[in-house]
């Protein structure tokens, strides 16, 4: 893609061999554009968060619970772990998915599920401490940002589960490299959003 974009004048046909790798590159570019859209979605959410927060008189308000740092911090490690496992899964894929691929994918799926479980426990304890959605901009921003992020994790988790199943199953439709690569990109993206969210919402 970068070559084609940089040279501009060169017809794309000259740059790629025929067939599958060409379609894979097309899918790759599509995913990059998609992720650019998602980046703008989260960038504007963070922008709104920043504006609301700078306009607030106190953050957090004195009578509302502070956000925990340790558990979400641990969750950051879980998210990084899932991304690393996916990378390994990609590297074990040769011409076809092996059981090692399936194993790494399964690990990533489990870590993804653990991430959601930990996040749910953070929500539960804060809800228990009296942090409700209608308690002003502070809980609004917290629940909206973490909730929208978790929704994206959930989508990724379903996809990873499906990929694991397809990599494990010996017969039938084999797992191709393209979906594995694209979902890995998606997962890394969601992880990167989490890193920013952790710093901007939990730490700052």
């Amino acid at each position, binding site marked *: 893609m970068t070559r084609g974009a940089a040279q*501009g004048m060169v017809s*794309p046909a000259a740059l790629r061999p025929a067939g599958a790798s060409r379609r894979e590159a*097309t899918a790759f*570019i*599509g995913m990059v554009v998609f992720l650019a*859209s998602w980046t*703008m979605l989260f960038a504007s959410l963070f922008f*709104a968060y920043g504006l609301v927060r700078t*306009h607030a008189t106190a953050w957090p308000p004195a009578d509302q619970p502070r956000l925990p740092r340790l558990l979400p911090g641990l969750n950051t490690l879980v998210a990084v772990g899932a991304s690393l496992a996916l990378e390994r899964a990609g590297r074990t894929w040769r011409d076809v998915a092996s059981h090692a691929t399936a194993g790494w994918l399964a690990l990533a799926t489990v870590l993804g599920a653990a991430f959601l479980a930990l996040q749910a426990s953070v929500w539960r304890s804060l809800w228990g401490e009296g942090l409700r959605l209608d308690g*002003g901009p502070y809980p609004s921003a917290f629940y909206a940002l973490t909730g929208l992020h978790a929704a994206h994790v959930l989508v990724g988790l379903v996809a990873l589960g499906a990929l694991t199943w397809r990599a494990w199953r010996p017969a039938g439709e084999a797992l191709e490299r393209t979906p594995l690569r694209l979902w890995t990109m998606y997962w890394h993206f969601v992880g990167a959003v989490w890193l920013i969210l952790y710093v901007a919402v939990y730490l700052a």
Partner: protein
Amino acid sequence: MITAAELKAAEASQPIHAEPTSFWRKYVFSIDHKMIGRQFLWAGLIFLLLGGTLAMMIRWQWAFPGRKVPLLGDLFLHRTGGVIGPAEYQQLFTAHGLIMVFFAVTPVLIGAFGNFLIPLQIGARDMAFPKLNMYSFWAFALSQVLVLASFFVTLGTGGAGWTTYPPLSTSIGTPGSGQSLMVLAIFVTGVGSTMGAVNYVTTIIRLRAPGMTYLRLPLTMWGIWLTAILNALFVPVLGSAGLLLLFDRDFGTQFFIAGAAGVRGGGDPIVFQHLFWIFGHPEVYILILPAWGIVGDVLSFFARKPHHWYKGSVGAMVAVTVLSALVYGHHMFQTGMSPLLGEGFMFFTLIISVPSMIIVMNQVFTLWQGSIRFVTPMLFALGTVIVFGVGGLTGLFLGDISMDLYLHDTMFVVGHFHFTMAAGSVLGAMTGIYFWFPKMFGKQLDERLGKIHFWFTSLGLTAVFGGQLLVGWAGQQRRLYDPYQYTFIQGLHGLNTWTSMFAFTLFAGQMVFIYNFFKTIFFTAPTNVQNPWGIPTLEWTDAASPPAYHNFDRIPGVLRGPHHLSDPRVEERLERDFLGQAEPGPEGATSAVEPA
């Protein structure tokens, strides 16, 4: 030069698939870009009629406030006895704006032409992701259903204006699920637009036929490609604003709720304005860039001349695209923005007129000494140039802070954005419909009816939006239910009534188009002339009318730019005045001067 290997590689990566035969796969859940384009065209035109009907009711209110609306009153306003009440009035202009921007003009200009034309004009068999294309249309169709549903809930559809500014758009300002359904509809159509945009951007990067370099793309493709980039980047910003507004309305969060209703200080309604206009200003160009592209091509084709300074127009369109992302603050001069920031936004806003002028001047120079054919699409293209010129010039007043303080939220603003976004893009869309109709359906719209339609439309739009500019200049605020409750506006009643009469005439003129459209599609035998206008781009020279399911039997190897017209060497040897983009020319003609 294109090698046989390149053509072979292109063929290998886009094999011909068999056409589906079942009704559902062929006409409903189709993955064929041409069918999806037609679906968008139908869906958009139906909502264009709906949005236009709503506009007529607004104009009725401004001409005869409080009087029973003829015909439509008994149909839609039985609760108030056929009279437009204040709440209904709010809903009328809200629904009119949202429907026209998101559910009528966008699907026709981007959904219909984008889908139908991209593969045909770049020489591909389909879009890069045909299934995603189908999902994009059905997301859009779902959003239209949500819009219609919002009319039938308790308290009716949304009433917070097309900009849906809080606090009016929060559940305190506009209670009821109608507003929520409208916001949800915008979000869902945004999802569909984003999917479409990903597809368009990727397809034009990856599936251009061998030899179809970026600077050989028809201007239409440039317009649609740049639009798709803007859509991919900025529709998600609107999506985030819509999501947060929905959370505020339905889950009790407080992003935009302030004042007495706000707990612990509450949020900030201005945040919504930022998000809305970060999207909203690029949106203006999302609607006009495809029209610029279409008009640029059509002017060249029917002046039978290469487009003047093609590269300049392309560069100017790119510049407008980039600048459009930097000017959104000019919608917010009145929000207490820092004057320094305001001046920055003003500067970039006024700078946009430079590339815009390059585009318009190139269009005018294209006509210079051309042998102009005044067919219907050409008339509409010329009309687009003129109304966009007026719209652009009035924009200078609004971009200037000191003038904007006076004109802000007056009918002048309404007139300005109707000239650009409504007149400009609707005439641009009509240009495209008349021009590509033979390619889409294999038959041609009636030229005589088309010309009648043109005069009604172009004069009608100019008169109506001109009337808006005038009353706005005189100080009439926009969105007033009964403007004549203000004594200083009472003197404008006559002008407003005249403007409304022009609007009714304009609407009546559209019946000519509807008649022509239905008559031609359903009651005219197809002629299937491949290239009735004598046009050099691929969809006319290398594909049938309507094109086969796989578009091209063999993927064309492109040799030259899109406007190879009136080359004397071609005229001498082929006895016609154009040479197709992929046509091996007569000796000497292939090395003819590229239009540049």
